[in-house]
């Protein structure tokens, strides 16, 4: 089987199956130049639904894993793209190459090659984009796209001179400006040249997703405590399955900004255990809202049943008093409506001051049970250990039993 060679602008059909997309730079490495290969999942509007639609080094397997960055080494990257499991609202996947911090343009390379392989790992398409003379530091190499029921690949070879930022914005991703870099080396300073310190990547997509492959994060003990730990539960209220229009304010603002038309009411709550052995729960059901400034130093921020609050539900933990806690189990439960976690698309995000937000998705391992033990916070000698749970139960009692909390549960309503 021979593959079709495409020049920029040309396209050819691909089979709707599990494809491999291989990107190769020539030469594979240039001194002082770091190239990142990424993929963007795009809807019919040519935009992402949220930052989960960006597949890159920091987030190699977001969402349901239909598009995953399998290998990424200097000058070479390989994506697995399963067109059969791709969400139906995704109609285009753009593959991009960006030069870190715009230190070079792609004109410094000879060529960029993309090979599309079918499920049997046979090359079906190759495109060799000559890079000579390119002024761009961010390139759309090519795109898989749906055209009248047929998936196709098009070689693109267009991009932006301004690097990752305009590229990401082109796809509807909001990019924060990087934090000011640390002290600049004085220009007059003679040799030896100091090694540049590693600087954070310029896109604020440093959010950490806790998933099966990386379920745990531990935050070191801080003498002053952890400040205000905020836990957000949000979910997709738009049952029509249409992505809500992008709104300003945060990468996930548009993803969950839809109107609350469905009948699903998701509640956040927690079980807590203090060092002194006290156990209890915080949740709207039974009106146990707690308190931020007084014992138990956990407070639930009002229940959102009206749809007026589109940012979901918030639980706040007073991290100044972290030493007083032993463990806290955060859970989400469906108070009304049929459990359909995949459609509800729930996400719990934990914000600890000065730390990257931690995100736990409730879609993976979805269940028909109405209670999801989402994340366990544990005090390990003053450190804050965050462990993704995502275990499903029939209700409070079963969950309590599984975690040996020892509360007595009676039915209630709000």
């Amino acid at each position, binding site marked *: 089987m021979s593959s079709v060679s495409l020049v*920029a602008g040309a*396209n050819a059909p691909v089979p709707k199956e599990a494809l491999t997309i291989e990107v190769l730079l020539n030469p594979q490495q240039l001194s002082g130049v770091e190239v990142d290969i990424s993929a963007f999942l795009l809807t019919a509007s040519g935009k992402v639904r949220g930052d989960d639609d960006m597949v890159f080094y920091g987030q190699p397997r977001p969402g349901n894993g239909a598009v995953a960055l399998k290998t990424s080494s200097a000058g070479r990257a390989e994506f697995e793209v399963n067109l059969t499991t791709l969400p139906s609202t995704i109609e285009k996947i753009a593959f991009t190459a960006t030069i870190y911090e715009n230190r070079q343009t792609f004109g410094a390379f000879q060529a960029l090659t993309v090979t599309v392989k079918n499920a049997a790992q046979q090359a079906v398409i190759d495109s060799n984009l000559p890079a000579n003379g390119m*002024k761009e530091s961010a390139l759309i190499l090519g795109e898989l796209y749906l*055209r009248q029921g047929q998936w196709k690949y098009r070689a693109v070879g267009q*991009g*932006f001179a301004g690097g990752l930022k*305009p590229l990401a914005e*082109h796809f509807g991703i909001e990019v924060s400006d990087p934090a000011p870099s640390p002290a600049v080396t004085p220009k007059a300073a003679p040799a030896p040249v100091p090694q540049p310190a590693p600087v954070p990547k310029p896109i604020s997509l440093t959010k950490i997703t806790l998933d099966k492959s990386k379920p745990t994060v531990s935050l070191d003990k801080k003498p002053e405590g952890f400040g205000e730990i905020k836990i957000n539960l949000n979910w997709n209220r738009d049952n029509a399955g249409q992505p809500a229009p992008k709104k300003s304010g945060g990468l996930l603002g548009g993803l969950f900004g839809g109107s609350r038309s469905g009948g699903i009411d998701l509640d956040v709550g927690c079980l807590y255990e203090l060092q002194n052995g006290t156990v209890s729960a915080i949740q709207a059901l039974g009106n146990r809202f707690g308190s931020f400034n007084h014992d138990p130093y956990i407070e639930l921020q009002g229940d959102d049943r009206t749809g007026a609050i589109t940012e979901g539900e918030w639980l706040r933990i007073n991290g100044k008093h972290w030493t007083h806690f032993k463990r806290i189990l955060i859970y989400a439960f469906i108070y009304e409506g049929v459990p359909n976690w995949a459609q509800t698309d729930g996400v719990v995000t934990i914000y600890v001051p000065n730390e990257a937000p931690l995100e736990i998705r409730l879609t993976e391992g979805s269940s028909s049970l109405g209670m999801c033990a989402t994340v366990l916070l544990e005090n390990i000698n003053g450190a804050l250990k965050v462990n993704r749970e995502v275990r499903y139960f029939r209700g409070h009692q079963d969950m309590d039993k599984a975690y040996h909390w020892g509360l007595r549960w009676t039915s209630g309503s709000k």
Partner: protein
Amino acid sequence: MALSLQKGGNLSLSKTDPSLTKIIVGLGWDERSTDGSGFDLDASAFLLTASGKVRGDADFIFYNQLKSVDGSVEHTGDNRSGQGDGDDEAVKVDLSKVPAEIQKIAFTVTIHDAEARKQNFGQVANAFIRIVNEQTGTEIVRYDLAEDYSTETAMVFGELYRHNAEWKFRAVGQGYSGGLKAMCDQFGIMIG
């Protein structure tokens, strides 16, 4: 709602709108959203006899010759960037004034300086041609070229043609490499 044609499809304008005499042929495409040389696309019209060729250079209506001698076909001018809503370029046709020996008017779009800029239609998004009743402003038919092109640098978007006593419109979507020169060769214009 105007009718939308697929590649190769045709529609009788006379039957769809019997009062139709003056039309606007609108052509459009998206402005380039990435960096680099912009796309400068030029619309042209070729007045063709039954042989499929022009009678002479005067039948080639383009940015340097905006109006046909008889006044039946008039190009409204060059839009260099594709900016703005709706049509990027428009050609007015008064069907009642088209000489009887002209059987067909082909509407083409070519990429200016395509070779030097390494551009082709595969890089141009959302190209379309549409026919609007000039007197009422109503869109009668449109053809979204979408995917019916690739590495070509010259395209016949559509054509008006006589069929018995009627005027019809056909969605052509035929591409050529070689830009405007190839198009002129095709229709019998000698380029010096």
